[in-house]
Each structure stands twice: as C-alpha cells, then as structure tokens.
C-alpha cells in the first residue's frame, strides 16, 4: 500500500508511520525524517513555513511510488508524509519510509524517493530569520 499525505499544522507521528509500514513478510523498514534546522549560513531561523500545490504534490508523490515499485518490486508499504504551514524548529517536515523483505531494497528505495521528492514535488519552504522581517524562499540544490 502507498500512504501519501499532506498534513496541515499537524505533527507527523512516527508511531503511526511504523504501524503503516508493518507487514508480516517484511524484515526491514527504512525511514527518512527531514527536520527543520535552526540555522542557515549563520543566520538564526525563527520560523519555517511550507506551502504546496496540494493536488499536484499528491500526484507527484504517487508517481514516485509507482516508479520505486518498478525499480524495487519487492517493496511492501510506502509512506510519504509532508507537513505544510508553520513547522517549529527540530520537528519533522517530511517522512519517507518503505518496508521490504530485505534491507537493501528498503534503504535504497527510501534514498531514491527522498531525492525524487526534493526535485519534483511542488512544495515550497520559506525561512524567516532573526532580525530580517522578510522571509526567504528556499531552493533545493540538485
């Protein structure tokens, strides 16, 4: 199963994710958690906000699932959750997780999915720094 969600001002609960991944035939789960950082180039981040083109973002997340299932056919469950709105420092903004019978598929597919998400899912992050009233829209590096 694929579990895809955009959460508005709601924490991502890792216990929920673990139970979505769970499958009796699976020996391995890999979970990537992206968290918000408190600094950018020595500037203190005081607030972070995400916005998305919701419908297209969910489509692209579903496309990523299809692609990784083609590359790693043994994958069981995939979870991609992304938080929107304000995300406090140190909290998870994104979780990408896969379960599989063996570890290598789980680890490799999560790594691949993270890169894909960062390069094509239409979601944007604005960082607001201390002593700078206007926020900065970030750009993911390749």
């Amino acid at each position: 199963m694929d579990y895809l969600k955009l959460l508005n001002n709601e924490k991502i609960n890792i216990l929920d994710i673990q139970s979505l991944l769970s499958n009796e035939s699976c020996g391995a789960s890999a979970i990537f958690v992206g968290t918000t950082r408190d600094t950018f180039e020595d500037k203190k981040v005081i607030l972070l906000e995400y916005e998305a083109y919701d419908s297209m973002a969910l489509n692209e997340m579903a496309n990523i699932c299809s692609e990784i299932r083609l590359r790693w056919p043994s994958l069981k469950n995939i979870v991609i959750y992304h938080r929107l709105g304000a995300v406090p420092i140190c909290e998870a903004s994104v979780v990408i997780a896969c379960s599989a019978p063996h570890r290598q598929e789980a680890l490799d597919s999560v790594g691949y999915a993270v890169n894909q998400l960062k390069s094509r899912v239409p979601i944007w992050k604005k960082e607001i720094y201390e002593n700078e009233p206007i926020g900065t829209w970030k750009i993911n590096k390749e």
Partner: protein
Amino acid sequence: MSVVRIGILFFAKTRELAGISRGTFTVNSVVIGSDLLNQLSQFFGLNSVRDSLMLALNERYINLNEELSLCEGDEIAIIPPISGG
C-alpha cells in the same frame, strides 16, 4: 487559431510577486511552452524570476520547448524552484 481562457495558479515567490494566488489569462490555444511563460511573466510581473520558472498544465510538468494545445478552462501552474523536504 482559437483563443482560450485558462486558469493560472501562483505559489511561493511568484504568488508574492503577482500578488494573487489565482488568475485567468487569455491566450492562443496552440502555443509553445516558453512563449506562454514569457507572456505570463510579462503580464503578472514575474520577469525578474522568469528563467527559474517551470510550468505545469493540469498538474503535470510540461517541457517548455513543446507546443501546447490548450483548452478552455485548462489550469496552468507557475512553479518556482521547489524546496520541499
């Protein structure tokens, strides 16, 4: 060649520059992606960031070199550089 009215969606930086999150635009139904982007950038005040933008047509990325056949009511999203994750 017919003319169609399409919906335009703005996000993040381009939403702030355009000052709106949705608009409409009238354009020839057959148009090259990059021409459409030029017209939209001109009209909505996005020239300063034009070269960093992508377009999506009805929730799919389009290749700016290709010719589009637009229908009345199609939705074009202007996609500035993304930063999800």
